């Protein structure tokens, strides 16, 4: 399994390289953002370990440029800052997991194996209807105007259901199957609340109500 290790601290890089090799990876090393970006675009890696603080740039920018070039390999980011906003930013840039420094090699290996396993079964499909693009892997909706919106689990499943068959009417009962709830069993009011939330995102007319029948995703609007 080929793996790209992007780390500028030579001590860490050397030690990690040895341990990753011992775990069965074929490791390429990059110490600068420039080198990392080139390797990530050209070569085919099974996974990437990416340090964010690089001498010639930010690791997040490297990651963004890979993702915009539709490179989908799983990426684990290493960061010295551990607050939640950094983690969110890392994942928004396209990372699959993060690990705060200092870390233990065993934990790094466990996380690496987890994101590789996760990436194996996943589809990197984009569901495109009208100008709307639903990224199934990342649970992101891109609007016709180009803005991205993160979706919660239920929002994503409802939207995927509606967008998979644009123009088809889904009854509330069919949509309820997409809901989970902790407390009482989900009912039709819950569906209505979610549809309201989705309409705020995609526009009032995009999800149409058919009185007495259900909801339709309108591809043309």
């Amino acid at each position, binding site marked *: 399994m080929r793996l790209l290790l992007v780390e500028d601290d030579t001590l860490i890089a050397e030690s990690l390289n040895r341990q990753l090799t011992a775990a069965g990876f074929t490791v390429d090393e990059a110490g600068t953002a420039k080198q990392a970006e080139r390797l990530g675009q050209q070569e085919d890696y099974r996974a990437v370990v990416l340090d964010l603080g690089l001498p010639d740039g930010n690791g997040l920018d490297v990651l963004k440029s890979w993702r915009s070039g539709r490179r989908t390999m799983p990426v684990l980011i290493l960061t010295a800052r*551990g*607050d*939640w*906003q950094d*983690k*969110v930013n890392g*994942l*928004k840039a396209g990372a*699959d*997991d993060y690990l705060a420094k*200092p870390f233990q090699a065993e934990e790094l290996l466990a996380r690496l194996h987890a994101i590789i396993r*996760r990436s194996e079964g996943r589809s990197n499909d984009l569901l495109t209807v009208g100008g709307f693009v639903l990224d199934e892997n*990342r*649970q992101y909706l891109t609007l016709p105007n180009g803005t991205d919106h*993160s*979706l*919660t*689990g*239920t929002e994503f499943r409802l939207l995927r259901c509606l967008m998979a068959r644009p123009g088809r009417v889904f009854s509330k009962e069919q949509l309820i199957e997409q809901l*989970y*709830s*902790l*407390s*009482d069993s989900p009912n039709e009011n819950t569906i209505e609340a979610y549809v309201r939330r989705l309409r*705020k995102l995609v526009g009032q007319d995009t999800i149409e109500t058919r009185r007495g029948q259900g909801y339709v995703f309108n591809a043309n609007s």
Partner: protein
Amino acid sequence: MSSMPIANPRKSVRRTLLLLLLPAGIALMGLAWFIHGLLLEQMSRDFVEGRLKDEVAFLEHQLTRTGADLKKLDTGAYFEDVFHHAFAIAIEDENQVSPDKWQPLLEALIDDERTGPFLVGAPTEINVAGKLLAYRKTTVINNKPVVIIVADDLGELHQTQQSLHLWTAVVSLLLVGLLASAIWFGINLALRPVKALQLALEDLRQGRETRIHTQAPEEFRPLVDQLNQLLDTLDQRLERSRDALANLSHSVKTPIAAVRQILDDHERELDPSLRREMARRLSDIHQKLEAEMRRSQFSGPQAGKVAHPVKQARDLLWMLGRLHPDKNFELSTDLDEAHRWPVEEHDLNELMGNLLDNAGKWASHHAELALWETGVSFCLQVADDGAGVADDTLTDLGTRGLRLDEQTPGHGLGLAIVADIVGRYGGQITFSRSPAGGLNVLVVIPA
């Protein structure tokens, strides 16, 4: 919220008030003087008209008594005494005019069409100062048509009226002067606390005082309170960061020295137990650094800081959904994305992040974050459907008084951080069993 400034904010309050109040006072006084002139004019004319009308009625009465015979009308000394005004009476072709010098003017009026009061310009040959006010009445007495005219010289009246008006002007000017000084005095009196504030601030800057103690007027009290609160926060923060740095350097230097000692000792071999010992020292340093870092990062309640709870919650839920693709993270709220809470953004992120991270770790399928607010508090609740916590531990979670330095973040429940933040906002944290059996954490932060 921005409002149009009424005056240039760089101008002084004193100057703005003076520029506004002084011209306004002068203009109002001038207007009053002008209106006074108009009223005076109207009043004197009404008065003269009334007199003229009365005298016409008197003459008419006299003529009726004498049977409309001019010769029988007593125009002797009595008449001259009673009558202060010029008059003319015409019965058929007979005229009588008094005094004689007004004859040409009044005779011309006998054939006039107008009745009632009207103004007549005086010809130059009659020695009067201005216009005349005449009252003309036509009537029939003893079947004879009768015209009665009584006239008065308005000129004299005008002169007294003007001198009165002039005096009013003088008094008005005096009043304007008094008004101006009253305004000046009032502004200075009202602004005296500002001067005191300035002095207090100067004292503060020079270090003579540590807080503003001035009795500020009601309008300035929030400002002074805010300033004092800011100073408190600043002091606390300074003290805290000094303490933190001192603690940190103290606790970090020893392990560093220990590790250096071992590394500098070339004779000694690095056997596994020594390696473990060194690693433990380094972990100590890391833990202490982390604890102090977190402590210094939480700001606690602070003026002018806002968080966007829904936006932040969505990001965190989305992120945890990516990290645990087999679990469902849901948001339940009626607040909209632009909604704001007066909590520092980083604090709220840590609060929700740690609670959700926990829920994500323990949930079997589902974790839910609910956000709402009541009139007096901001509430957030995180629930999961995991195994939960045993009931006796549940009560412990809330009462043990978890402190950050007693519990290491990343190990255990990570609730230490949450409890610390909630404490800084004077909030409450309640643990219970969720409907699905997992842990339910309710955080209430007072508004």
